[in-house]
């Protein structure tokens, strides 16, 4: 068996809504999940079960209340659940990639640069980074004439593909994909599925949420069921 790339143990998370009188909403409890290099695990469960919350917790975007999230980073296991912010930033730069459902657009930054930024942050020369960004955008059927434009005016599907290019360009050993094909047509969804398969072949560990069951069945090796927590009586 190949090495474990990411492993969550006894993970729990409640949301406490102070503006609602301190209402406590338990979302995750006793989550144990481990994903190996080259494996794709699809999170399954009804809407509201906590799939996105688990995904965001794995990325360090949500703070968990207990448990650990071990990520193999530079050959050692780092616990994202308790790591200091600067360590999380370093892990995200090199090891842990994330494709959110929506692109957070930055005014005035061209699509090509949104994508290239990931490589430039690691020290890749700007011209090389931009060249690779353009190649990936073309593969995702974003025509060259759009590469120099800020994605704010792009359609939802185009923004999603810019977001995917940004997520895939870094070749992170672990990728978290939150509905990567949600606003894509069949042809583009198939391009993305191909990219996921290539990443797996390179040894990338992938955790994904896929509403498109055809895509899910094509790329996922197994399902991980996230069950809604029963309301306390």
């Amino acid at each position: 068996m190949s090495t474990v790339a990411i492993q969550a143990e006894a993970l729990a998370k409640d949301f406490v809504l102070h503006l609602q009188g301190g209402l406590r909403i338990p979302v995750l409890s006793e989550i144990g999940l481990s994903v190996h290099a080259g494996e794709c695990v699809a999170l399954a469960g009804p809407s509201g079960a906590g799939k996105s919350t688990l995904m965001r917790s794995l990325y360090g975007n949500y703070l968990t209340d207990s448990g650990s999230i071990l990520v193999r980073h530079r050959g050692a296991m780092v616990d994202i659940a308790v790591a200091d912010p600067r360590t999380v930033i370093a892990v995200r730069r090199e090891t842990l990639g994330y494709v959110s459902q929506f692109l957070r657009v930055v005014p005035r930054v061209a699509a090509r640069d949104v994508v290239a930024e990931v490589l430039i942050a690691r020290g890749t020369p700007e011209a090389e980074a931009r060249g690779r960004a353009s190649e990936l955008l073309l593969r995702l059927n974003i025509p060259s004439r759009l590469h120099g434009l800020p994605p704010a005016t792009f359609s939802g599907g185009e923004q999603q593909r810019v977001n995917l290019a940004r997520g895939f360009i870094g070749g992170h050993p672990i990728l978290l994909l939150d509905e990567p094909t949600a606003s894509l047509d069949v042809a583009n969804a198939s391009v993305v599925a191909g990219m996921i398969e290539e990443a797996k072949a390179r040894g990338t560990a992938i955790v994904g949420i896929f509403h498109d069951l055809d895509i899910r069945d094509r790329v996922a090796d197994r399902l991980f069921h996230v069950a809604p927590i029963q309301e306390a009586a």
Partner: protein
Amino acid sequence: MIAPGALLSARGLALSFGRIVALRDAAMDIWPGEVLAIVGESGSGKTTLLNVLSGNVRPDGGTVAYRSGSGAVVDVHAMPAPALRALHRSEWGFVQQDPRRNLRMNVSAGGNVGERLMAQGARHYGNIRDEAARWLETVEIDASRIDDLPRTFSGGMLQRLQIARTLVTRPSLVFMDEPTGGLDVSVQARLLDLIRSLVARLHIAVVLVTHDIAVARLLADRIMVMQNGSVIETGLTDQVLDDPHHPYTQLLVSSVLAA
């Protein structure tokens, strides 16, 4: 007391103005090349904290330690005034919300930029002028405006000129107080993009005070939330803004209007 590898560390900062507590046991660290945002409503103490960190206001208690380019760790509030001024002219920069506080309005745009270089010992007029022209273009001011007085500039141009003046000496640490406050939204976007790319390219550490959560999200690696002079929540910017824990941070984040 400075954290390992940190550029600037503050511990136990306390300051009161009469019966008003402006800072209560405030602490922070910043490492080279990172952007730290301090957010909170007016009166939360964020600008006071910036002024104490930069040595401009002396606290009642606590320390601010800075690791200088030479590797020596200095106590910012124990430094002789001339040494602190020298630091502000070389390794540090301060970007004010109102650029007029930092610029000399009766000196040309090029002179405003070149002056910081001269304060560092540059003497060759041609080189200084060339460098000033380069910096004007870097901040998207046409080099043909080099001999114009700042009073002929728009608010957005003045702010970009202040940034050129501040960054020309390649500081390692820059304090920014609401750098985009008071500007039109379109002008803000351009300025934010400029700050973002320059800070990354030059590997400058920035302590940024802002009341604008969107500005913090765009620019900052880490965030500190202040309320009534205390630091109430700190962490990775996206984590604090997407999963705030303190009641006040939840209020702050939920109060932002989505465009």
